[in-house]
């Protein structure tokens, strides 16, 4: 594994995303003309997105991170579609974040979250592919001295029919790289797509089946040491003292180091040695008021918020309170959703090497630029002397959008100049230092008239704001608009019901437990609250849950279309198999419209077998339907694991659950048959990694009510002694 610690203006540091290996290698090739920007191997960049090797291999640059969601393949499909290249010759690489900075952010945003990987970059990556195609064809035409309009291109081969000549992309790439980029770059009509929109296989699969794929955990550098770390378990408190005399002489141990104000690390020849020594290290922490916080005190505080006078209004129409006061029938319910940890399979880790001239980091991150910013701060070096090399993520789900582990790795490496250090968190450390799904309670009060029409709804949220902790600058006069995901008046997280008198508000309560973006973010609890309550209202109105929803969805035809699609496929309104019960749910999230319907049976009142889940997604455009199906099925594993099993509880200010024995995750035996319907209606670009996660839980909960008459309003279900069969 090579790395060249100096960055040359013309050199191009990359990590190969598809191969996952072959870390940064930079070459300076002064003899190859001054105007062409070159990739690490000397091949010309036609533009920032496309490098073509002499053997016709097409290297597509990907700025967003691959963490299993298929973005790498989907983005490559979009570029390749416009490029008209041979898909079998496509490979990908990640330009490093510092290269992006040095090149004035030519690759745009690196952050990979909010199901945005494709939906917010599709246009400029397609233009990158189209511009490269235009330049390649022009280069061939100029070489042949024929008009561009007489040339055609297919699968990376340019043809001039009249003279019966052909040229491959590889043969004209050098010439194309010198051509002035086109200004007018028309894009194809998605209806004519042949690579994008198709259920192609992922580009990164084989290495994931042979053990070759390189994750952050797998980095090896010459002379590298390994570090294990303990950060103060009570959030907000600090490291007080440690006694390294007890561990210094243990085999392999090299250093015991303070990391920032809150953590201590042991650095050893191997990680196992470091971990054993860390476990033996006597450590004390400072104490403070947070030591007194527990799940009970947090719950009590949130409960007060359900009736508090002050609340931020997220969505309002008519006069909900008056409608409720005048209601023929009033329905009220209180729900509660817990803290949860992302628990990606690969615990957090980062490798760093620091000298006064250079700091380099190798890690899996959902945001290379944020990781770079953190590395800059921790290293004390300018951006010209720092870089981050992105590796495959063993899951992200939002957790790897925060770069605390990168900061720690650099702070450790800085204390051992010139020695690469790989910091690995134990699973326990990972569980104790998450950025947790925020905790939330809700009180919903609905008004029905004599005919059972829904005339008013007051939906009060009480709980934690992510933005207040993570991006306080994005609060709007104190309000966290993200809290209202799935409930907003308009936009990518719009509420999908037309209720004449509506008030959705949020009493913000921010405990000391750090919140973060957790796959689906606030649509998870908001959709459970809303969609379960819709069934409660339908029951009170004496109406069928589907009919009741339809009655307030007239203004939301796209929401209704996906709901109808799942209702039809699950057989709503037709008899279910004996002992099988159904439930459904819908939401708009991350600019996609999704609905889910579940079929379950219940044994002994508390063993739920989820037989089937039908899910429909309208993402506007479907870049890779096969990968969308996989994301949908996977989102249900994530969402149902959370529903049934997952809760982070707090005792004496710290997290109680430290591993999968107390924080369970679904296994294959519990997996329902997922039937995913993708119905792209065109005209907009929605995300797919997250939206459907929100509909699995309420669909199952509504089916559970249908089966048992019991309405569960607090989670996870294990607290009600309910498990999956």
């Amino acid at each position, binding site marked *: 594994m090579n790395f060249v610690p100096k960055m040359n203006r013309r050199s191009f540091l990359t990590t190969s995303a598809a191969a996952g290996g072959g870390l940064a290698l930079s070459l300076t090739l002064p003899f190859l003309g001054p105007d062409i920007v070159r990739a690490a191997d000397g091949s010309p960049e036609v533009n920032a997105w496309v490098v073509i090797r002499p053997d016709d291999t097409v290297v597509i640059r990907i700025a967003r991170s691959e963490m299993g969601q298929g973005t790498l393949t989907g983005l490559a499909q979009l570029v390749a579609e416009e490029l008209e290249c041979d898909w079998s010759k496509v490979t990908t690489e990640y330009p490093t974040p510092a290269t992006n900075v040095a090149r004035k952010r030519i690759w745009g945003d690196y952050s990979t979250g909010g199901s945005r990987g494709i939906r917010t970059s599709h246009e400029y990556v397609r233009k990158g592919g189209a511009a490269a195609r235009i330049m390649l064809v022009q280069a061939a035409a100029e070489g042949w001295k024929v008009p561009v309009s007489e040339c055609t291109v297919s699968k990376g081969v340019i043809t001039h029919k009249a003279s019966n000549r052909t040229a491959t992309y590889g043969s004209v790439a050098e010439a194309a790289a010198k051509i002035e980029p086109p200004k007018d770059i028309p894009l194809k009509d998605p209806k004519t797509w042949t690579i994008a929109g198709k259920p192609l296989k*992922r580009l990164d*699969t084989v290495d994931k089946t*042979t053990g070759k794929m390189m994750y952050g955990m797998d980095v090896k550098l010459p002379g590298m040491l390994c570090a294990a770390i303990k950060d103060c378990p009570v959030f907000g408190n600090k490291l007080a003292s440690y006694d390294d005399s007890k561990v210094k002489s243990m085999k392999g141990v090299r250093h015991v180091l303070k990391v920032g104000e809150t953590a201590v690390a042991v650095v050893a020849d191997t990680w196992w040695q470091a971990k054993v020594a860390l476990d033996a290290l006597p450590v004390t922490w400072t104490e403070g008021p947070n030591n007194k916080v527990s799940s009970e005190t947090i719950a009590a505080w949130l409960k007060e918020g359900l009736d508090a006078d002050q609340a931020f209004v997220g969505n309002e129409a008519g006069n909900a309170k008056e409608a409720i006061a005048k209601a023929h029938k009033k329905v009220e319910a209180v729900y509660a959703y817990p803290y949860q940890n992302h628990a990606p*399979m690969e615990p957090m880790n980062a490798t760093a090497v620091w000298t006064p001239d250079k700091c380099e980091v190798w890690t899996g991150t959902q945001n290379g630029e944020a990781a770079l910013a953190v590395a800059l701060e921790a290293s004390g070096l300018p951006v010209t002397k720092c870089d981050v090399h992105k590796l495959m993520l063993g899951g992200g789900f939002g957790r790897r959008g925060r770069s605390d582990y990168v900061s720690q790795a650099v702070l450790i490496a800085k204390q051992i100049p010139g020695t690469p250090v790989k910091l690995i968190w134990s699973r326990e450390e990972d569980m104790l230092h998450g950025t947790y799904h925020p905790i939330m309670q809700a009180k919903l009060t609905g008004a029905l008239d004599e005919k059972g029409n829904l005339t008013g709804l007051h939906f009060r949220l009480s709980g934690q704001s992510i933005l207040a902790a993570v991006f306080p600058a994005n609060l709007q006069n104190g309000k966290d608009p993200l809290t209202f995901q799935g409930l907003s008046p308009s936009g990518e997280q719009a509420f999908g019901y037309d209720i004449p008198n509506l008030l959705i508000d949020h009493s913000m309560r921010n405990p000391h437990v750090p919140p973060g973006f957790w796959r689906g973010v606030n649509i998870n609890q908001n959709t459970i609250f809303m969609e379960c309550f819709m069934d409660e209202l339908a029951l009170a109105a004496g109406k069928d849950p589907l009919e009741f929803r339809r009655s307030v969805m007239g203004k939301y035809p796209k929401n209704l279309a996906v709901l109808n699609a799942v209702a039809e496929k699950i057989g709503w309104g037709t008899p279910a198999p004996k002992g099988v019960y159904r439930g459904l749910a819908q939401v708009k999230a991350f600019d996609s419209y999704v609905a889910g319907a579940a079929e379950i049976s219940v044994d002994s009142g508390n063993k739920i077998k989820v037989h089937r889940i039908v899910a429909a997604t309208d993402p506007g455009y479907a870049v890779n339907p096969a990968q969308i199906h996989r994301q949908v099925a996977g989102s249900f594993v994530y969402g149902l694991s959370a529903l049934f099993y997952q809760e982070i509880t707090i005792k004496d200010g710290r997290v109680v659950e430290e591993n999968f024995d107390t924080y369970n995750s679904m296994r294959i035996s519990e997996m329902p048959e997922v039937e995913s319907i993708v119905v792209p209606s065109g005209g907009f670009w929605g995300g797919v990694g997250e939206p459907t996660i929100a509909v699995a839980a309420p669909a199952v909960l509504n089916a559970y009510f249908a089966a048992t008459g019991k309405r569960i309003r607090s989670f996870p279900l294990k607290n009600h002694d309910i498990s999956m069969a």
Partner: protein
Amino acid sequence: MVALTINGQSHNIDVDPTTPLLWVIREQAGLTGTKYGCGIAQCGACTVHIDGVATRSCSLPVSDAAGKKIVTIEGLADNGKLTKVQQAWVEHDVPQCGYCQCGMIMAVSALLAEMPKPTDKDIDDTITNICRCGTFQQVRAAIHAAANA
């Protein structure tokens, strides 16, 4: 010193005998396809074969593996030719992040060696690996495909 045979190669490794086999495979033998997920035999990411038996290597002291035949994910393919399980994995595009998949493939390979045509129930009873990305639907399809290949 612990004498290990990994993927047919003998290693004499100077290591504390209580070290979990997982970390010796990763750190001393340098084979990083075997993953760390939990360290407490819950997730299966660290699964290897010991004398043909799928074993969670994070919870086995290396001394217990001495003298036995250890196979890791890197030892499955024969001269670069993928096994039928690996081929089925590629064919069904099973991995998402892929971090759990080496352990999953090791567990499935041991299952198929013992039960060439497992039923869904056999799969449910035997394959208890965690996959946080949720690839189970593809895993099941790929197991049946490999069994019928």
